[in-house]
């Protein structure tokens, strides 16, 4: 235990100190004595963590005010080519035709394929080993199990996020074909999952996939079926999908100039809009939304505490200063308000205000927070006033005939300032938390207004597939709250304020 450690004094400890020595510098007061606030600032500067938090907060303010000038992307603009995109600093995309009609490949009756415009592409074709072993058809009951896997499964045209076109050789005895898509290589025929597509006839030996393609690697599998049973044998192909953008999308989203000719553009590579923090489920840029959201979260987080602090201090000071029956009644009322279940009444207020169309819901939240949060501040202020009232300098002021207003504003408030400041730094993270919490459960800021809380609410829906949509707003909330908490601790130490928690 640290407290029970023995301190061994030696005679050296009691020697006269040498005035010139380096290690006693701090004992000697140098220069003029500092005011209370200057000294507190010096002490805060010594606290590295508090200083770091202060810079973090300044950075966040810069982020929200200066950020939109640096990163000028409109937070409401939907980038429909890039929905729920993970963070990236610009990717190139292939411009493709808007017309996706593909006649496909129809097999002849003789079961040879009629090649329309099959390009030979160097795509690795992985055939299941079993296929080769059982390529000879058996004529017993397990006929369909013996249906061979389609051979020569390959990709037509360059696979891209607008379409993946597949074709394969027909299988003898097949009635139809099933196409599967997986994001990892299937291990067996039972591992294929749910079919993506079933062809109409045995002659359809092609498929064009346009279902929510992403620029990743897919494994397409094709299985023949005799109409009742699926074969156990499948052909699988690995397809690396290239990011693509249609010509009209490219012109619309200004990656191509409006006068660009269609013929020249198709097949070209263009650079898509960069999204350093990705996009959300509607294709809106996360970074610019976080900047705008910061404005709303910080506005509520900073303005609400300021206002309820001001109200609470006036209320508490009046009660404490005048005392007597007025104090009794005023504080009783404050006790009542404190007893209201906070979150329930925040929600209740939101309902009572009734948010109309086009409103963001920020003002009702602000008002509700002020109405519910002032009493704790009032209590604190009253306690301070009661304590200060007994101070000799107040009595001296009274003796000089100072008015009540003069006494409150000139003598009491400045002396309460340190306590107020420390409470403010703790009230801000609490308010940010409340906003985030309410918006997260859908009871706060109304969409499409972004706040960190409402962005987390949206991000929660896609957490399993696109975690960045929750992680970034949550990170911002956490960092802000953390910074204000540490700064509050630092301020408390620097100002030497004792607040009972």
């Amino acid at each position, binding site marked *: *235990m*640290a*407290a*029970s450690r023995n301190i061994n004094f030696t005679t050296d400890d009691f020697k006269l100190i040498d005035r010139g020595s380096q290690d006693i510098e701090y004992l000697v007061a140098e220069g003029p004595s500092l005011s209370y606030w200057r000294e507190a600032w010096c002490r805060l500067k010594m606290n590295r963590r508090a200083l770091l938090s202060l810079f973090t907060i300044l950075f966040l303010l810069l982020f929200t005010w200066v950020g939109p000038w640096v990163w000028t992307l409109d937070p409401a603009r939907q980038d429909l080519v890039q929905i729920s995109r993970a963070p990236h600093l610009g990717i190139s995309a292939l411009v493709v035709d808007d017309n996706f009609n593909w006649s496909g490949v129809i097999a002849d009756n003789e079961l040879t394929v009629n090649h329309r415009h099959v390009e030979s592409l160097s795509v690795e074709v992985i055939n299941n080993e079993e296929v080769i072993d059982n390529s000879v058809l058996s004529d017993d009951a397990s006929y369909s199990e013996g249906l061979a896997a389609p051979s020569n499964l390959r990709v037509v045209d360059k696979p891209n996020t607008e379409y993946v076109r597949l074709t394969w050789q027909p299988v003898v005895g097949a009635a139809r074909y099933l196409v599967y898509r997986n994001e990892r290589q299937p291990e067996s025929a039972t591992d294929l999952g749910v079919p993506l597509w079933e062809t109409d006839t045995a002659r359809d030996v092609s498929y064009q996939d346009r279902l929510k393609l992403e620029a990743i690697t897919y494994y397409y599998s094709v299985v023949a079926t005799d109409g009742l049973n699926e074969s156990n044998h499948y052909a699988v192909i690995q397809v690396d999908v290239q990011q693509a953008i249609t010509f009209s999308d490219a012109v619309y989203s200004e990656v191509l100039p409006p006068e660009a000719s269609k013929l020249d553009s198709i097949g070209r590579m263009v650079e898509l809009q960069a999204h350093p923090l990705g996009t959300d489920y509607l294709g809106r840029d996360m970074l610019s939304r976080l900047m705008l959201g910061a404005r709303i979260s910080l506005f509520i987080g900073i303005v609400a505490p300021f206002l309820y602090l001001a109200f609470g201090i006036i209320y508490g000071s009046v009660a404490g200063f005048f005392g007597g029956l007025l104090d009794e009644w005023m504080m009783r009322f404050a*006790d*009542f308000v404190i*007893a*209201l*279940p*906070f*979150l*329930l*009444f925040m*929600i*209740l*207020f*939101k*309902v*009572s205000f*009734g948010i109309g169309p086009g409103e963001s819901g920020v003002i009702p939240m602000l008002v509700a927070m002020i109405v519910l949060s002032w009493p704790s501040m009032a209590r604190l202020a009253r306690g301070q006033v009661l304590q200060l009232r007994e101070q000799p300098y107040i009595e001296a002021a009274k003796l000089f005939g100072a008015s009540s207003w003069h006494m409150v504003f000139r003598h009491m408030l400045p002396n309460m300032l340190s306590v107020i400041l420390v409470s403010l730094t703790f009230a801000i*993270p609490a308010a940010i*938390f409340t906003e*985030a*919490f309410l918006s*997260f*459960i*859908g*009871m706060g800021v109304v969409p499409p207004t972004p706040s960190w809380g409402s962005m*987390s609410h949206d991000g*929660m829906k896609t*957490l*399993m597939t696109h*975690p960045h949509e*929750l992680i970034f707003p*949550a990170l911002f*909330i*956490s*960092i802000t*709250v*953390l910074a204000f*908490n*540490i700064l509050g601790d630092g301020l408390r130490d620097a100002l030497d304020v004792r607040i009972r*928690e």
Partner: protein
Amino acid sequence: MLHYLMKRLAFGVLTIWFIATATFVGMHAVPGDPLMSDKAVSPEIRKHLEQRYGLDKPIMQQYQIYIMNMLKGDFGISFTQQNRRVNDIIAEHFPVSALLGVLAIGYATLGGIMLGAITSLYRNRWPDYLLIVFVVLGISIPSFVFASIGQLMILKVNAWLGFQLLPVAGWGSISHMIVPSLILGLGILAYLTRLMRSSMLEVIHADYIRTARAKGLSSQRIFYRHQLRNAVLPVITVLGPAIAAITTGGFVVELIFAIPGLGRYFVQAVQQLDYTVIMGTTVFYGAFLVLMVTLADLLYGLIDPRIRIQKVA
């Protein structure tokens, strides 16, 4: 003591009345009216419904009936769920929230006291720093982040193991309760750890500790009998509000883990504008909060004789 008890109780009742009135005023300030739904109702049916819910009476009379019913412990009938009494809804869903809350509070209190005591023992050494980091993170990260990450983790662990170790969501068995209650109590755990730590560090400089040391008591005895016991006192005062906060603040955990608690039900009622359910739940929770705070205060008085004497005098 009896005088103090009576005073506390009277104040508690007054507070509940205030909560009920505030709820009534708040709900009647809502634009539109409770019978306005997307289905068009004929005037006769509407009149009948108004009669059934007592909405045709003047507002003061409605308030009177509301308060009288409240005194009888009757919160009325739900607007959106036909013939379901609000009392039944509370009786069905509150125990779920309460169980979750008790589990969370239980582990958070024990853990907070233990961790706080440990950090104070290892002051300014690595276990202290480690726990401070944990505490700061626990206070700074919103519960919905913990809850969603927790759920994702369950999913990943289940997928990795190949069988279901813990259910991802739902309610019914002990395995459903583990992760939600752990997450629900995390904030309180961090808060109590911090409180306990500062309380321990404060107590260590007290005169009675010096006296005990001067008497030659072993440091273990001082730690358990003198320091810990006295340091726990402030923790008990915040326990009342903490219990209330955790039982009402369980919305997020209940929403994410699909737990049929009263918090989730309240959010649902607000979305559907189910007036009676909103009013009933708010008043019920308010009363619960008042009860908890009063109990904690009384308990504090029982445990710490100094407070008792101070308050009586």
